[in-house]
């Protein structure tokens, strides 16, 4: 019966509104009866009266006044008054008018009404926001406004949001019939996010059927949400893993393939990041239109710069230290200090601003996930670099020679391969890839002289974990460590998670001192 009345009201309201009802609604404001006021606010909101917004806003801000005759006035920011009925400025003595006060019921009605008013805004984005806000407030009082808005709405995406908001208000309403509530629960369940689940869990005085449906809905939503959580962790893990892979893969070549411990590897990454900075700097001043391509220009350039520096290091330092891994470690550590300080002297000790091209920034929603484009790009870049490196090793003459030298240096030399040059080129290749990693890292990390330092230990962990001398092992190790790290983070916190990963790797090395995929045979004895 009550529902029929409500429906009747819904049908009648617009008619009444057009019949000039607001004048009566206005008079309710000055009546001093709070219940009448709350009703009037709601009524006004769905009336479509052009003055409704101004009145309710003024009411909320405490700028709505009435004079003894019941005439409503809005006090402007400058202190002057304006008559609502005529819309003209009015000269009023401040003593003759009284401010219209609210109680909580009126305040709630006003809030809901504001939301309701925005449902009829001309801009679809505003309507969408209004519908979303109403879903959050899920106040049964907004039901009439929502029904009216739904009937008018053309945009399907806004319609869907409004339907959800209506469903939310419906399940919260004390007097809606069971069938309506069940239908509403189905709509909310289909929405499937955390808000929906919270809403379903808080339905007031449910009938058994409603309670059961709501419980089912909560369970189903939670299951889906957990799945998305796992997927999100996997995505972030893969993203971290691809960063680790980029940082570690160059190391895997110099450390794994050549047996050289290059502690200055992190500085090659840092140099790559600074190359990006310089490229962007030049583009900003010379050709701003190219900014979108800055990263694409920087990547090969960083490869070249870091590669050349790498070759120079190999020729001037490393080659004197072959066969003395611990000494190599110390000398390259010294080199890393020098490189850091050099960059600090040239570019200053503070972080440098590296911009993100527009095509890399932003995020795309994918189901319950938010995929940030820069992370996605880095994953793709890591895969690309890895594939290119594997192809280089597998299909080119240089790759063939590199593999030959790795497997049996003496025999390779006997076959006419100039092993010192292969060493230098291999080192240059590893350094160049580190430089490209720097381009990627400049997009997600601070570009400072210490950039490389923060990755060097992780990179070593990845290489050791994956198995020295095995690039597939490095790739798998990087992704595994990244994913494990991201799964531990919510459980243990970011720092503890990192510590746990370090401890796990240390323990893992106890079990398998040569990594996931140890080299077998003679190469392993090196």
């Amino acid at each position, binding site marked *: 019966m009550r529902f029929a009345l409500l429906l009747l009201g819904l049908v009648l309201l617009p008619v009444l509104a057009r019949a000039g009802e607001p004048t009566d609604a206005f008079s309710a404001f000055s009546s001093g009866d709070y219940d009448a006021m709350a009703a009037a606010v709601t009524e006004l909101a769905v009336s479509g009266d052009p003055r409704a917004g101004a009145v309710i806003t003024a009411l909320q801000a405490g700028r709505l006044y009435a004079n003894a005759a019941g005439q409503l006035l809005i006090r402007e920011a400058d202190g002057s008054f304006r008559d609502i009925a005529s819309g003209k400025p009015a000269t009023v003595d401040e003593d003759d008018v009284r401010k219209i006060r609210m109680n909580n019921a009126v305040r709630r009605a006003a809030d809901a009404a504001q939301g309701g008013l925005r449902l009829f805004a001309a801009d679809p984005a505003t309507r969408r926001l209004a519908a979303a806000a109403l879903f959050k407030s899920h106040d049964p009082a907004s039901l009439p406004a929502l029904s009216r808005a739904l009937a008018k709405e053309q945009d399907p995406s806004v319609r869907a949001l409004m339907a959800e908001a209506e469903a939310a208000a419906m399940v919260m309403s004390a007097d809606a019939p069971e069938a309506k509530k069940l239908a509403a629960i189905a709509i909310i369940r289909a929405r499937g996010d955390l808000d929906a689940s919270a809403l379903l869990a808080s339905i007031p005085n449910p009938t058994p059927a409603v309670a059961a449906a709501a419980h089912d809905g909560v369970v189903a939503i939670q299951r889906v949400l957990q799945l998305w959580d796992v997927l999100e962790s996997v995505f972030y893990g893969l993203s971290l893993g691809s960063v680790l892979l980029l940082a570690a893969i160059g190391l895997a070549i110099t450390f794994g393939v*050549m*047996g050289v*411990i290059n*502690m200055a590897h992190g500085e090659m990454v840092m140099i790559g990041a600074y190359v990006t900075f310089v490229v962007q700097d030049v583009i900003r001043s010379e050709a701003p239109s190219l900014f979108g391509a800055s990263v694409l220009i920087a990547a090969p350039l960083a490869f070249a710069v870091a590669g050349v520096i790498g070759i120079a290091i190999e020729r001037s*330092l490393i080659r*004197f*230290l*072959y*066969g*003395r*891994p*611990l*000494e*190599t*470690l*110390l*000398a390259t*550590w*010294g*080199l*890393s*200090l*020098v*490189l*850091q*300080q*050099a960059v*600090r*002297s040239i570019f200053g000790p503070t972080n440098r601003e590296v911009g993100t091209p527009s095509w890399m920034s932003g995020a795309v929603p994918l189901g319950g996930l938010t995929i940030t484009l820069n992370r996605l790009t880095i994953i793709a870049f890591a895969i690309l670099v890895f594939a290119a490196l594997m192809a280089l090793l597998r299909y080119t003459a240089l790759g063939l020679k590199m593999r030959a030298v*790795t*497997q*049996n*240096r*003496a025999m390779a030399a006997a076959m006419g391969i100039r092993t010192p040059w292969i060493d230098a080129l291999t080192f240059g290749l590893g350094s160049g890839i580190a430089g490209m990693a720097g381009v990627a890292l400049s997009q997600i990390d601070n570009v400072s002289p210490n950039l490389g*330092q923060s990755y060097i*230990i992780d990179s*070593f*962990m990845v290489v*050791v974990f994956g198995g020295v001398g095995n690039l597939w092992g490095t790739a798998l190790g990087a992704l595994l460590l990244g994913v494990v790290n991201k799964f531990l983070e919510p459980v243990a916190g970011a*720092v*503890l998670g*990192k*510590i746990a990963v*370090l*401890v796990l*790797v*240390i*323990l893992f*090395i*106890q*079990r398998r*001192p040569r990594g996931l995929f140890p080299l077998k045979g*003679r*190469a392993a*004895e*090196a």
Partner: protein
Amino acid sequence: MTRGSFATFTPPALVLAIAALLVAGNVALPPSSPLHVSIFVISLAGKYLSYAMLALALDLVWGYAGILSLGHAAFFALGGYAMGMYLMREIGTRGVYGNATLPDFMVFLNWTELPWYWHGFHHFAFAALMALVVPGSLALVFGFLAFRSRVSGVYLSIITQALTFALMLAFFRNNMGFGGNNGLTDFKDIIGYPLQADGTRDGLLLATALLLSLAFLCARFVVTSRLGKILVAVRDAESRTRFLGYRPESYKLFVFVLSAIIAGTGGALYVPQVGIINPGEFSPANSIEAVIWVAVGGRGTLAGAMLGAVLVNLGKTYFTSALPEFWLYALGALFILTTLFLPQGLIRMFARKPAVARPEIPSAKERPA
């Protein structure tokens, strides 16, 4: 006097003599005298000698057992934290919040009672014992796991580095209960003597010199014993030693633990003289810097390691104040030049024959095949 006993007793005698001279210069000479030693120099010397103890510890494992630990500063810092905890408790009600049991940072974090691992640290003897036991136990567990599964060479270096890195991250956390980022500081006195007083500082320097000498003698005793010979054998040809029937992991474990204890002692002496201990001491860079002290002074000589620690830190003190830009270049160059041109270290320039013979055919053996 034989060569052996000359090499055994000269370094500690020199250490003690220099420390005594410095203290005498501080105590006996009036401040107006040009030879007067300021209290700043006394503290600095105490700091250097603490570092020398870390270098000594590192040389014991690296020079004699071939274990290049890139995480030895962790043991040093753990010893330092044990002493720091005692010094914190010693502050008592004189802290900012005047809490008799809780150190200031715990009051600040709204902790109501002392964590269990802080109990007992108000006794000096207990704290001193812990400064040895904690680094020793960590070395025991870590070494047992690592050596048993024959992790060696650069793999070991990297996981020791990861160890100290993990500890650094852990100690940076506030809820670890070690003062987080700020560490432990604002100490007032040690066994009743005010830390700011000249007399206490002189005493600490003498104590450091004495303990350094003792540690040196102890290390010297180990490396000249039969056990030391086996250690050198393990360093130069681990597999061969194993085939001869020795268990290299036991020898390595023993010397690793001993070294950690010496490093912990160094840390415990370092903290009262510097007045602060914070998680930065765990940073991998510190450990690697300690390695270069040993390399500069002369790996596998013990005395050389101590000398290297003092010399490099003298240089650091000078450069970081005179030419701060230049210090990292100098340190970096030191790493490079030492490994390239001075693999035997400074002290061998004075010695008649190298104490460590270079491996005979390193390039053929270790170069990647």
